[in-house]
């Protein structure tokens, strides 16, 4: 079911036979049962799946937060499944940008400082102000999280994620905690980044509508890829409704 149109594009991530089994008390949970997939350079991919489909587990493994039980995760020349703690930390530090459902800003730092805390440890970052301007928050740079709305907080989180110029931007239910109007504002920011910086982007969500803004939609169910759909044209987030 591979999308043939994408063959000529550069592969950033690829997984082969990726499985993840973890124990919850007495029960063994098979979160991933052999996932084969690719992320292509510059693409915006939406990974769709219901709760328990394994989409979060997949994102966590791609981002180097979690280790797989079996299989291969190839990032460029590197197999992340065999990587140790040190390698994963520097992988996260230098190559991945994360956006979380609950923003996860440091409440004691202002918007600008929340971005700066990442740029300070990166190799070739943009200036925090620049990153905030990209998400349309230049005016509110010196506000603390408690002074920002949920959507604004999430945009700060996006600025934080892209300020290091990551090879890939991973977003875990970025609109999950927001109303639809604010959610669309956040998706606009993600789309803007993808277009302007050409950052490979993966968004996981249970919201089918969001799939319409993607280049490709990967459908996950029961720990497997059940469908890959290539959109002929991407919709602008403004055209989305839910």
């Amino acid at each position, binding site marked *: 079911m591979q999308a043939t149109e994408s063959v000529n594009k550069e592969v950033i991530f690829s997984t082969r036979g990726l499985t993840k089994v973890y124990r919850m008390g007495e029960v063994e949970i098979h979160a991933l049962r052999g996932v084969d997939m690719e992320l292509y350079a510059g693409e915006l991919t939406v990974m769709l799946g219901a709760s328990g489909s394994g989409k979060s587990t997949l994102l966590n493994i791609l981002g180097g*937060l979690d280790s797989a039980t079996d299989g291969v995760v190839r990032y460029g020349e590197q197999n992340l499944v065999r990587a140790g703690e040190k390698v994963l*930390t*520097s992988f*996260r530090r230098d190559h991945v940008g994360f956006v979380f459902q609950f923003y*996860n800003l440091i409440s*004691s730092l202002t918007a600008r400082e929340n971005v700066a*805390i990442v740029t300070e440890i990166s190799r070739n970052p943009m200036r925090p102000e620049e990153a905030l301007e990209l998400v349309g928050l230049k005016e509110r740079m010196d506000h603390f999280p408690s002074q920002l709305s949920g959507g604004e907080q999430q945009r700060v989180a996006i600025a934080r994620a892209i300020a290091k110029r990551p090879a890939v931007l991973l977003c875990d239910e970025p609109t999950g905690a927001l109303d639809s109007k604010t959610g669309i504002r956040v998706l606009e920011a993600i789309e803007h980044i993808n277009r302007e910086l050409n950052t490979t982007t993966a968004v996981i969500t249970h919201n089918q509508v969001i799939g319409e803004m993607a280049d490709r939609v990967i459908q996950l169910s029961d720990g497997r890829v059940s469908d890959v759909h290539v959109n002929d044209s991407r919709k602008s987030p403004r055209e989305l409704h839910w």
Partner: protein
Amino acid sequence: MKTIHRKLLRDLGRLKGQVAAIAVVIAAGVMTLILAVTNLESIQHSQQRFYEEQRFADVFVALTRAPESVSERLGAIPGVNRVETRIRAGIRLEVPGYSDPVRGQLHSIPDGRQPDINALYLREGSLPEPGRSDQVAISEPFAEAHDLRAGDRLTAIINGREERLTVSGIALSPEWIYQIGPADILPDYERFAVLWMNRRAVANAFDLDGAFNSAVFTLQAGADAEPVIDAIDEILAPYGGIGAHDRDDQLSHRFLEEEIDQLRVMAVMLPTIFLGVSAFLLSVLMGRIIRTQRQAIAVLKAFGYSNRDMALHYGALTGIVVLVGAVAGVLMGGWAADHLVQVYLEYFRFPELDARIAPRYILLGVAVAGGAAALGTWRAVRRAVSLAPAEAMRPPAPETFKQGWIERSRLGRLLDQSTRIILRNLARHRFKATLSALGIGLSAALMLVGSFQFGAVDKLFDTQYRLVQKSDVILHFTDPTPERSLNELMHVPGVQFAEGFRNVPVRLINEQHDYRTSIQGMDTEPRLLGLIDKQHRPISLPPEGLLLTDFLADHLQLRPGDPLTVEILEGHRRTLEVELAGVVSEPLGVSAYMERRALNRLMREGPAISGAWLLTDNARNDELFDALWDVPRVASIGLIGDAERRIREYIADTVLVTMGFLLLLAGSIAFAVVYNNARIAFAERERELATLRVLGFTRAEVSWILIGELALITLIAIPVGWLMGTGFALALSEAMAMDMFRIPFVISVQTYAFSALGVVVATILSLLLITRRLYRLDMVSALKTVE
């Protein structure tokens, strides 16, 4: 078991580290409380019982010689209940198999029966049989020191005559609970004995047939001692009475009272510190628990649990922590009290001294700990109770932060984000951070005071034995002796140098202030006794006038140049006006000094001495003592080097143990505060820290944010602790300044370093425990939870 109780137990299980740390501080508080009150109680109780049962005297007087008929006049003084006359005298003893000189204080008792006042408590054997002049009862500590039993033999030199004595019994006396020889600083059971003999035998030996040289009195209930003392002094003045005094000037009683005072201070001060800190820790912990359990509280209330149920639930949580701490404290306090009582029994000789913990003290300990905890927890519990269910369902609003002045400054721009997080967290929780720093500071302060005592006491003895007391042996004659006997002393084998002194008992009076001491008459440039000022610079003796110890001058409210009245309590008993020529500073005792010839002139006598200081050759000690005993009129021989060695041993034994104890307790405060803070900070920041890990921060970088904050608090706490500790030390050295000794206020760099080190070690220990958690930080699950 009700489910809500099960929740309680699980909460406790989850928090066991913090609960244990707080319980240890509570235990320390309860332990010090139990220790102090139990010992206080047992000493006071034993003292009271011993005084009552043995009929301890209220008023004491010594005189030269008065006929027995005078006793009737003494008994007739209004307010006197009973009077008992007796003979007291210093003697020398020889114990088989023991070569050092032994001094004895001999008391007469009525032939074959107990005295009416200051009756003896017989441990073993019996009183001397009536009519026997070769039997003697001896004090228990002396008997123990030489392993003497009833029936054993001793040789005594009584008034120059050698007598063979048999021990009839071993006894304790309320007059000698603290058995210390004249001019000693510490009890020396090997070299000082108290003995009791039939009155007739003593009278014969000292040519005091039908006469007495000491009397003790009990007063009628409610009678005032002052007028009785005045009346006694008036009656006994013609008989060489040297002034009656009440219990306050009785040496044994005074030492005992000092000890009781110290225990009283300890009973209040230490528990207050420990329980105060634990109240603070509990308030922080409960505040945290209730914040994280907002939703659970809301759900429970939504399903019909009442405010009272909630209050009881969280109250019980605190209650269990208190109970665990209090029980541990009571057990440790009981154990420690038992041991401390053994130490007390070594110095305070009661027939019995039990450290029995009265149930009311256990209750007191639990109540005080519970009260402190309630104070600390009340606010947090009230918050839990007052939450409206709907309000509590919503997550708490994110904390608000502000930029502080440091960051707005030029320096602030140089800070990295991690440091900003640390600074803002501290600023946001200013109150908590301040109390934490105070708590850790207190711990440093306690350590400082603990080690200060040790260093200062060491310094005291350095001053006393290097700068003041420079002789090896001090010799007292039975009576003033012509100066030329010094020549004789110079030729005793082993004596390298001898310097005579004249010692006259006096009462120094300035207006309503007076003090009994003696004037030491010395050579103008004494070689064996140093007169020094506060800065330890030598002072020379003026040809006329008196030098006083600064403490005594303050007590009498005198300044150099002021006149004072000297009432001479020996010989002609004149009263003179003398000028205070200056003050000297010495750590032990209080004295008055005068040029010896000038003192001889005041006494209207030729060049006489009361004793001598000797420099000796230690290698020839045995030979020296044998020869010294043969010098006529030698009353006592004191070994200075020996005294110093014993005192330093005593310090090493008791002060070091106390100090180690204090360090352990103080360390537990620092540990508990840091650990508790670390655990709570960790729980509150777990999500932030996990986020930073996801963003690519290494474990070390993430750890720094947490540890940096705690380390900074400790760093701030150290100077705070130094300041508080210095204050405590100053207060302590002033509170403990008394005529017997003054602890100098000197704190060495090492003492400061030591207290800082103790706090740093406790901090590192508790941080090590936290790093374990930081290493297990679960990024995935931390990101999923919503606060």
